[in-house]
């Protein structure tokens, strides 16, 4: 397997003592997409933050490209890991092109190379450069912002991509469209992707493998096709809740 991300017996606790992750182990190779699914508070986002060392595990180890995150220079590590955060977090004072160009510029790419990369990425995420490059985040729809967020995360061509509810706040039509786009893009860029979602059908549609989390534990993982065979009642309940796709918009639990 091409080296990607591996978590070995990872536990993470808050300063208050509350345990967020219990002895969690999972590996994702290059070109592979792992979809983590679970309800709010299951610890999904914590997994992502451990990968780019926004957090450091209390026990076990997190390896990115076969190196423990604690051995990485955190700045280098984060520039090698694209991160699409839940709220997108585009920089409101920068144009679309400048948002995408942030990491390449921090890496001191030449102006020509940055410009070419921005054009390539905006085309890749379906936002024609000429129409969108000079716009500002508040002039975009939610779906367009998500696309810019993805382009920005991919800008410096990082081997690893983390996506936290990237399509969470979108209407169902845009969401379906972006999911298809994601598959197309992933087929081309072949990154090691960890995608977090609370939506089982999304996880099943996008993940090469799926991990089900609950209460800080990974209670099941495997290929999407195998999930229906699980004998864990909690996993089955989760799958059944997703089956009638038409009622996908179940009211979200907020914690």
């Amino acid at each position, binding site marked *: 397997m091409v080296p990607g991300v591996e978590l070995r017996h990872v536990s993470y606790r808050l300063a208050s003592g509350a345990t967020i992750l219990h002895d969690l182990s999972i590996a994702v190779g290059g070109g592979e997409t792992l979809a983590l699914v679970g309800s709010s508070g299951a610890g999904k986002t914590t997994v992502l933050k451990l990968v*780019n060392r*926004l957090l450091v595990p209390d026990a076990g180890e997190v390896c990115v490209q076969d190196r423990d995150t604690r051995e990485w220079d*955190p*700045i*280098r*590590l*984060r*520039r090698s890991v694209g*991160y699409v*955060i*839940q*709220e*997108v*977090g*585009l*920089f*409101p*004072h*920068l*144009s679309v092109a*400048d948002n995408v160009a*942030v*990491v390449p510029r*921090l890496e001191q790419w030449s102006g020509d190379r940055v410009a070419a990369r921005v054009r390539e990425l905006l085309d890749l995420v379906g936002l024609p450069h000429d129409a969108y490059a000079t716009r*500002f985040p*508040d*002039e975009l729809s939610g779906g367009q912002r998500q696309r810019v967020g993805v382009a*920005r995360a991919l800008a410096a061509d990082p081997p690893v991509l983390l996506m936290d509810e990237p399509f969470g706040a979108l209407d169902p039509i845009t969401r379906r469209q972006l999911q298809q786009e994601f598959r197309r893009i992933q087929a081309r860029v072949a990154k090691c992707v960890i995608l977090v979602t609370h939506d089982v059908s999304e996880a099943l549609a996008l993940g090469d493998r799926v991990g089900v989390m609950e209460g800080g534990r990974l209670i099941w993982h495997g290929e999407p096709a195998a999930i229906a065979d699980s004998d864990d009642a909690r996993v089955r309940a989760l799958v059944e809740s997703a089956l009638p796709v038409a009622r996908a918009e179940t009211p979200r639990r907020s914690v």
Partner: protein
Amino acid sequence: MSAVVRFWVTHERELATLVAEHILLVAISTTVAVAIGVPLAVFATRRPRLASPLVGIANIVQTVPSLAMFGFLLPVPFIGGVGARAALAVLVLYGLLPIVRSTIVGITTIDPSIRLAGVAMGMTPRELLRHIELPLALPSIVAGVRVAAVVGVGSATIAAAIGAGGLGQYIYRGLSMVDSTVILAGAIPAAVLALAVDGGLLWIERRLSTRRQARSRRTAIAVATSLVVVAIIGSAAFTMRSPNAIVVGSKNFTEQLILGEILAQTIERETGLPVQRRLNLGGTLICDRALMTGDIDVYVEYTGTALTAIFHQPATKDSSAVTAKVRDLYAASGRTLLPPLGYDNTFAILVRAADARARGLRTIEDAAKVAPSWRAGFGYEFLERPDGYPGLAQAYGLSFRSPPQVMDLTLSYRALASGQVDLIAGDATAGLIKGLDLVRLEDNRHYFPPYDAVPVARAATLLRYPRVRLALEGLSGRISAAQMQEMNYAADAQHENPADIARRFLAARRETP
């Protein structure tokens, strides 16, 4: 209003200098406050536990009245004393709070997801600050700068009390002459300046918060920066002090302004040396301090005041003994008492002429009998001085219906004339005694020491410029009490300019040697 315009036209050059000084004070102090305040605020956002004590301290500083702040700074070395340097220190302190607060607010109110995105993208704390936090906080920072600059324009008028120049000079001069034309001549340009600064910075603030035009942001920043630079260079060129000018000081009432002009014009005429006027300093101790630190070279003091208020010695009655003693005390601290000007400006206990006639009052002793049904109003200094009210009350057994009101010395004459108070302590030479039909009561128990008007200079200055000593010695015994009162009357009652009065006096003196 037309009187104000006429005043501006006739004082065109002086007005331009004062406006330039004012702009310079505000521009420099605001720039320094930004240079200190923004890094301080950034530091506070990195150490959240420091942020609230920091803002707390800045808040407390802000609540200290500016005049008191100047007072606190008087004895502080390097930044203290009198003159522009001390004024800048105070204005910087005042400017810090709004800038620190708005910068902290600007940075801490940035959407956490934006900061998370920056960190997750591998920005170092410095990159995050430079590319994300400062640009997003910029409109808020500029709003703080705007507040600081507008407050600065106002506070800078008070800086005139410690001789920093600026438009406050007209305001103080007008107050001491009770001349609203002169007050307005300073207050109107100050208000216009405040509005212009407010409007200009508001424009920049708006520009900066319309996030869509990156180019116009850059233009706004460039415009702001170049305006500040032009303001500083331009005003500095205007107010540049020639290095070997003799600096003449004065206290902040009419007689002192005229005396300051008499000294200044005498030095100018007889020695040809450049003279800088730092008139209207806010009180005896400020003048004394300024003389000590070399911020001024010479001013006119009164022997009794020097003896009691500056050197804290018991008052004595004999005029030449007091002068000799004060001369020795000054000499011991590197200052030289020049020959007396010729008159004694003692405190005059004043009442309305009508009251004096009706009750047959001639002496302070007479007044002590009716005083329990009266109200009194005294200047700040008189209430506190060892040769002031407490001793007087004891010497004559004086008491009033209520504790004496504290009021500005010059305003107290008007307060007496208009019946708000019934007894005041004025200057024997005050022009308003005649102008407002007041009567001076005789100090029949000889409470007050002699107050011979006498120039005090830095010994070092006189050594370096012997001609200055000669010129000032030429004033020895040349001003009588009647002449001084006449000059005060010309200023206070007829609203003549102190410089013109001094010029006329000196010209007349040359004709009749």
